[in-house]
């Protein structure tokens, strides 16, 4: 409880204006809602059960998020079927599927605050109509509803239900241009603040040992986040998408660094990965999907191009088909 009070204190100290507006929420502007939601996702302690539905499948997961003096910790546990779990401690992520456990190192240290930059909000408003809709109730919490309607058919519509007090996202749906739900998730039970069990947030001895071994081998390549030109050209990016960064990064089980170019329209992101294709890679070309996220791979000469995005399949394919090598312009 004291922690919660401290948190609220921090919120007020950091954002006097904003927090004041949050109290008088009918006046809250759309962009403020988006910023509040991004802030709440990182700064709120919560634990609950949510239902995820995509492509005719429904599943339940437990989600826990805790912020303490060591940073941000979150855990997602699948409650149906085989064991599925993700644990994130700041920039370290463990993914467990069945007996297989994989460790990821996030390239971008989470930005502390604000989570959404002003230019992102601006670009979002250029590409989507942001409409505040009727107030609603989700998991017994009062919620404000925000509809983000794209101005073309190359991106999805999103509807978001945010907790009226904290801004925490309680429910979210992704819809196609005909209004069909592509995926949605909603909390069915949720505790915001208070005592939250977080023993899992301490890495296991095994994980800690693995980290200690790895740390000196692969420091976070923050310097790679600078704009580098890989010579790869992507012409088919839908209008409104701007390049956020281009880098060369190491990925698990890959012998050679992978070029990663990220585009965003302020809400959806588009990643283009280009890597040297070797016979041993066991890659598979074609389209795969998980809810609203689509992955499309294809070979371009000796290289494998993979595009990932929360965009309709045709947009993802269009982007992948347009990737070509234009040579080192800098040289």
């Amino acid at each position, binding site marked *: 409880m004291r922690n919660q009070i401290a948190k609220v204190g921090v919120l007020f100290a950091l954002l006097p204006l904003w927090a004041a507006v949050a109290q008088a929420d009918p006046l809250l502007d759309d962009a403020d809602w988006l910023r509040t939601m991004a802030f709440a996702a990182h700064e709120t302690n919560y634990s609950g059960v949510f239902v*995820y539905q995509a492509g005719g499948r429904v599943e339940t997961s437990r989600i826990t998020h805790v912020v303490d003096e060591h940073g941000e910790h979150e855990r997602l546990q699948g409650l149906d*079927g085989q064991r599925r779990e993700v644990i994130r401690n700041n920039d370290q992520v463990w993914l467990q599927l069945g007996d297989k456990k994989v460790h*990821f190192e996030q390239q971008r240290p989470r930005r502390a605050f604000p989570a959404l930059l002003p230019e992102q909000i601006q670009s979002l408003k250029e590409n989507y109509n942001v409409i505040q809709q009727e107030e609603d109730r989700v998991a017994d919490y009062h919620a404000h509803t925000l509809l983000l309607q794209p101005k073309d058919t190359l991106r999805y519509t999103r509807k978001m239900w945010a907790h009226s007090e904290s801004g925490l*996202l309680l429910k979210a749906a992704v819809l196609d241009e005909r209004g069909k739900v592509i995926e949605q998730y909603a909390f069915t039970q949720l505790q915001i603040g208070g005592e939250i069990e977080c023993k899992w947030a301490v890495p296991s001895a095994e994980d800690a040992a693995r980290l200690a071994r790895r740390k000196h081998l692969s420091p976070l390549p923050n310097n790679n986040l600078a704009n580098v030109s890989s010579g790869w050209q992507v012409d088919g990016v839908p209008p409104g998408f701007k390049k956020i960064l281009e880098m060369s990064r190491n990925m698990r089980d890959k012998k050679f660094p992978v070029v990663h170019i990220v585009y965003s329209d302020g809400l959806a992101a588009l*990643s283009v990965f280009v890597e040297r294709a070797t016979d041993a890679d066991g890659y598979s070309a074609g389209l795969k999907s998980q809810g609203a*996220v689509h992955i499309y791979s294809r070979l371009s000469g000796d290289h494998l191009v993979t595009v990932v995005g929360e965009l309709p*399949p045709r947009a993802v394919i269009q982007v992948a088909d347009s990737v070509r090598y234009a040579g080192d312009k800098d040289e």
Partner: protein
Amino acid sequence: MKREISVLMDGEMFEDEADVLLDKLKRHPEADRDWAAYHLIGDALRQPEHVTSDFMAAFHERLQNEPVILAPRRRQQQRIKQYALSAAASVMALALVAWLSMQVGQEPPPQMASVQEPNMVRPVAFHASDYLMAHQEFSPSADMQGAATYIHSVAAK
């Protein structure tokens, strides 16, 4: 025929008569509706709380929505195929296979480009989670959703 169906369902028909009727039903698909309707009536009389009038329609829809596995050709498999053939076939056949594989090329089959419906697409495989994880680090919507975004990496296959 409706009366006969009703008699058959009530178990009041002789075996040879039943055979004749079942044959008839096979030849007249439109009688399926009567068959289903009589069963529905029977079900409704016995346990009205479990009645589903559109079972076939629902089943048909679910079948339509089953993911279609679009397994693209892999380079390696192609090569194995070539070796197998070269062992058995003449030099001419080998040349033909080589020519054909050049024509086919390394591109994914063209039907990929026309795939529009997300539910017709293969679920994400394990190694795809590497790309997903890398992608999520920079997605603004992931920023707003927090840990819920990881559902894409761990959702049941």
